[in-house]
């Protein structure tokens, strides 16, 4: 019987792969949790698309400032040494390849690293993209965090994305509740699996071919 990583364990696992000195953008939702697991002694520069570097944690109740928010429009703080800048500069940091890592959520990721995370394509859905496409193609490394399967048990790791694409071949590494997978030129390579899971178990719930871990 295997176990699944919890959402907090996934966040903790991603945090392990963020080194000191990295410039990092954490997407809205699950990726935001990663900040909780960055050890305070490790200096990491968190970027927020709306114009700040050196983003700190949420303020204490009563200390919120409506002019100091993150991409999710939640109140945040600025660390000592942090900076503000305008939107064109903020996205130049992404598109210009200055961010080391971004962490995004996803609906689907393909074995070639294609990402679908902005739109379900449903006819009644109002499309909204925000900064997702800029981040996907801009950061040096794109980490994706998502559940391995949908609520109905379908694999979100696929041969080819059926949802509208955010970016082509842009994902570097995938963290799911079952495994950590690297996108390589040869395909998806298993890096780690949840305790008790075999490669055969993982392949059985994954709709794209998996390469075995390298010892």
């Amino acid at each position: 019987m295997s176990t699944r990583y919890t959402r907090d364990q996934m966040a903790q696992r991603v945090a392990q792969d963020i080194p000191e000195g990295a410039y990092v953008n954490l997407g809205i939702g699950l990726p935001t949790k990663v900040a909780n697991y960055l050890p305070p002694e490790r200096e990491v520069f968190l970027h927020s698309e709306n114009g700040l570097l050196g983003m700190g944690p949420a303020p204490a109740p009563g200390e919120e400032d409506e002019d100091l928010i993150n991409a999710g429009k939640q109140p945040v703080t600025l660390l000592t040494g942090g900076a503000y800048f305008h939107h064109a500069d903020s996205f130049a940091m992404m598109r210009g390849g200055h961010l080391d890592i971004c962490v995004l959520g996803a609906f689907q990721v393909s074995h070639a690293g294609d990402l679908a995370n902005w739109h379900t394509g449903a006819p009644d859905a109002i499309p909204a993209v925000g900064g997702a496409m800029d981040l996907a193609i801009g950061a040096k490394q794109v980490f994706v965090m998502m559940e391995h399967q949908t609520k109905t048990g379908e694999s979100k790791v696929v041969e080819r994305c059926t949802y509208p694409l955010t970016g082509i071949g842009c994902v570097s590494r995938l963290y799911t509740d079952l495994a950590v997978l690297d996108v390589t030129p040869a395909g998806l390579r298993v890096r780690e699996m949840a305790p008790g899971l075999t490669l055969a178990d993982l392949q059985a719930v994954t709709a794209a071919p998996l390469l075995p871990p390298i010892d």
Partner: protein
Amino acid sequence: MIDKTCASLERAVADIHDGATVMIGGFGNAGMPSALIDALIAHGARELTIVNNNAGNGDTGLAALIKEKRVRKIVCSFPRQADSWHFDALYRAGDIELELTPQGNLAERIRAAGAGIGGFFTPTGYGTLLAEGKETRVIDGRHYVFETPIHADFALIKALRGDRWGNLVYRKTARNFGPIMAMAAQTTIAQVVEIVPLGELDPEAIVTPGIFVQRVVKEAA
């Protein structure tokens, strides 16, 4: 003596005509020039094309302008939010046109207009629905999409302090689209918390030089 300060919000927006393209600063409510938007609603201009990152939050500011059905079209990156109900209702009824653009392309298209650039090739959006029908090019082995500048008749922005020459400084993340929208519009109107005497803003710290600003108005009397 050059004096770009305006005595009232009402006067600041008085020449915004029906059918105008109006950039409105802000990311959500941070940096949104709500006093100018309220004056624009009172002024009554209709059939506006609005450029903003979002499509209104809650019931005030841009959301109120949309609710009053003054907006024919909106150019933005992220319309759908938990509190974008006024936009959602009009969009579903087919009463407002949406041009969706990735946020970085939105910012760069605005900046390009302000800098006199006729368009640019960007990797953002290549191969996606948002690049359909657009010109593409391979440069040094990478795929790019051609994006055009966004010009505006007016920009309504919010800053912290301004002087009579139109120099501006902003506050925290309320800066966002203000500096680039100021560059991209024929007429930029800045709502400020405080108008200060010339020379009081540190020249090393001025974010938007007055050349990009035509009117400065205090947000509250």
